[in-house]
């Protein structure tokens, strides 16, 4: 046609009234760098093509070049929202190969850190999920800022424990790196009480809100069969009626010492996943309290007085260690050739497996539900792409 139309991009209807729309990788609710290529019929999504890999940083190759003492602080960067969990999985894999004993006090400290991390991670999930549904210029932002306020308290605790707020390097092969500073336990108890009280406030704020309920109930249903077939984990699996929690199933570290409930919801929708996480908040805080009360004295590492990072040597062998992260099963497969560095390392990211559910549940929903469902899956793209 004429010059007026020269630079015009035609919307690709392809004759069937379908519209292809890109969501991400740069998008307000991409949760990092997720790209969803949606096929729309009006407002209804009929197809979704999920594209990942924008945040790939060669973590597994990197692990081969770092010693067992160095890598835990880098492992933090796989799942940066719950940095403690990936460190935990890595050191447990190394300890399994080397059959290294961990002192009781170190195990308790590990559990405290892991559970506080779970609370921090769930807080960020709740905030961003509501932000997805409520908008940055609406009620979502309000609950987001409340959640961030509480998450800061936990980050303060981590900062006084480790010295860092996001990526810690707290776990070490054979134990933990730091003991509790003076007054930390009391500060932690105060924080735990405060957060527990505030969780109740959020529950009331959300569940008494009919708009929140209609946005979450019956949306994005994952059936029990689908959940098991895809190997999803964590709150998604428990929200679909499967009673599976590695803390209970494996009882790794010192989890057998503590009492806690494993919440299970059967409806499998966004609201079920929300309920599971809300109960997990309280159970995690309950574990922290128990661990603080029964914290034994003793060394914090079975390999004290290390002078050089190369001193941690693991005998030849291979092992898979898994822990229950905030998003599901975080696994680390480690092959050691007897040197100071692993021969090969493989991550099993919980978000990666959970993300596989999206193409199964999103088609048929409206565009607005896409962000609600994606938020309820709680993906962290550092962990998806590694």
């Amino acid at each position, binding site marked *: 046609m004429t010059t007026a139309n020269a630079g015009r991009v035609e919307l690709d209807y392809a004759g069937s009234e379908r*519209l292809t729309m890109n969501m991400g990788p740069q998008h307000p609710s991409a949760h990092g760098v997720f790209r969803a290529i949606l096929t729309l019929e009006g407002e209804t999504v009929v197809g979704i093509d999920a594209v990942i890999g924008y945040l790939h940083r060669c973590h597994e190759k990197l692990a081969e070049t770092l010693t067992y003492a160095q890598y835990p602080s880098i492992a933090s960067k796989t799942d940066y929202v719950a940095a403690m969990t990936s460190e935990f999985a890595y050191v447990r894999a190394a300890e399994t190969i080397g059959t290294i004993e961990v002192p009781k006090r170190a195990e308790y400290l590990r559990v405290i850190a892991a559970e506080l991390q779970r609370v921090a991670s769930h807080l960020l999930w709740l905030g961003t999920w509501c932000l997805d549904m*409520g908008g940055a210029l*609406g*009620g979502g*932002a*309000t609950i987001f800022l409340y959640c961030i306020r509480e998450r800061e308290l936990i980050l303060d605790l981590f900062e006084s424990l480790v010295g860092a707020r996001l990526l810690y390097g707290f776990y070490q092969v054979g134990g933990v790196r730091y003991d509790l500073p003076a007054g930390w336990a009391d500060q932690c108890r105060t924080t735990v009480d405060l957060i527990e009280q505030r969780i109740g406030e959020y529950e009331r704020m959300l569940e008494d809100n009919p708009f929140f309920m209609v*946005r979450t109930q019956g949306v994005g249903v994952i059936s029990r069969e689908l959940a098991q077939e895809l190997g999803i984990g964590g709150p998604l699996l428990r929200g679909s009626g499967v009673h599976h929690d590695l803390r209970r199933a494996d009882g790794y570290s010192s989890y057998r010492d503590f009492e806690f409930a494993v919440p299970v919801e059967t409806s499998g929708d966004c609201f079920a996943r929300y309920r599971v996480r809300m109960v997990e908040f309280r159970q995690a805080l309950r574990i922290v309290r128990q661990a603080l009360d029964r914290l034994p004295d003793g060394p914090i590492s079975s390999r004290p007085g290390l002078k050089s990072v190369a001193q941690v040597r693991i005998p030849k062998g291979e092992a898979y260690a898994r822990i229950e992260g905030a998003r599901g099963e975080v696994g680390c497969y480690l092959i050691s050739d007897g040197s100071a560095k692993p021969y090969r390392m493989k991550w099993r990211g919980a978000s990666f497996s959970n993300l596989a559910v999206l193409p199964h549940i999103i088609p048929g929903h409206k*565009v607005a539900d896409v962000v609600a469902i994606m938020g309820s899956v709680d993906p962290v793209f550092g962990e998806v792409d590694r």
Partner: protein
Amino acid sequence: MPEWVTPLVAPFILLNAVIGLVTYVTLLERKFAARMQSRIGPYRVGPHGLLQPIADAIKLMMKEDVVPTAADRPVYNLAPVVFLIPCMLIFATIPFAPGLGVADLNIGVLFFLAVSAMEIVGLFMAGWGSNNKYALLSAMRAVNQVISYDLPFIFAALTPVLLAGSLRMSDIAAAQQGLWFIFYPVIGQLAFIAFIVATVASENRAPFDILEAESELVAGFRVEYSGMKFAIIQLGEYAHVIGASFLGALLFLGAWAGPGPEWAGPIWFLIKAMLVFLLITWVRWSFVRIRVDQILALSWKALMPATLVLLIATAVVVVWRGHAGV
């Protein structure tokens, strides 16, 4: 002063007053929202952030004006103005005190409602002209939503009109000198609630802001706008909300009625309008957004029948009592 001067000067003064008000209402909203979210809000520019709106305006003016190459240029460029004009025109019939207004038409409320519904043209032009898929979806939603909610909005606004027995805004205000219509038994409160819900929805404010819906549509119909064009759209949107707040204060809260001398009337009116605005803001920062199909269902299945029944009931009451007024 010759008689022909007033129609020229009055709109000029009013438009500038509205623009000034809009700039500072954004600050009010930001401070209010910040307090709700346990933040402080703008604080750095001027004492207590009082110069923040001016800094924002200057910033927006200095921004580059980006026009997408694929945009439909005439439509794209015209849309902000087409959007702004109805948003400003709605102030024309509002009297701010007895005799203080641009045009106290005998069909004042009708004019307000009719002009206010015209904003959809600008919205749709912006969404269509941007040639952006997010903007297109947003324009589709805009047409759906604004049409669905203008009817309940009109029905709710007509309830006080029936009670006052006049479409002239000054008559409605005068009819409330004894009892504000919000205190009219049952009908007043129900109509006010319906009015607030319909206002929030037809002004595209959260939780009904599916046009903007930045979590899925990024910024909806204005995603491609920048600089002054964006500022004009924002200005229009806020002017519309404030216009609706003034209408709410006039229809339900007795307009300029209040204690104190007569010259305090406009101040009372402003305070009441700001209270209505803060009510809308409070709703905005408390709820999560609802989905497009749920919004339409709420309008057609609940709000529409409810306001219609309310309107008929009001008519029956007025006929039964044999006279309008309180």
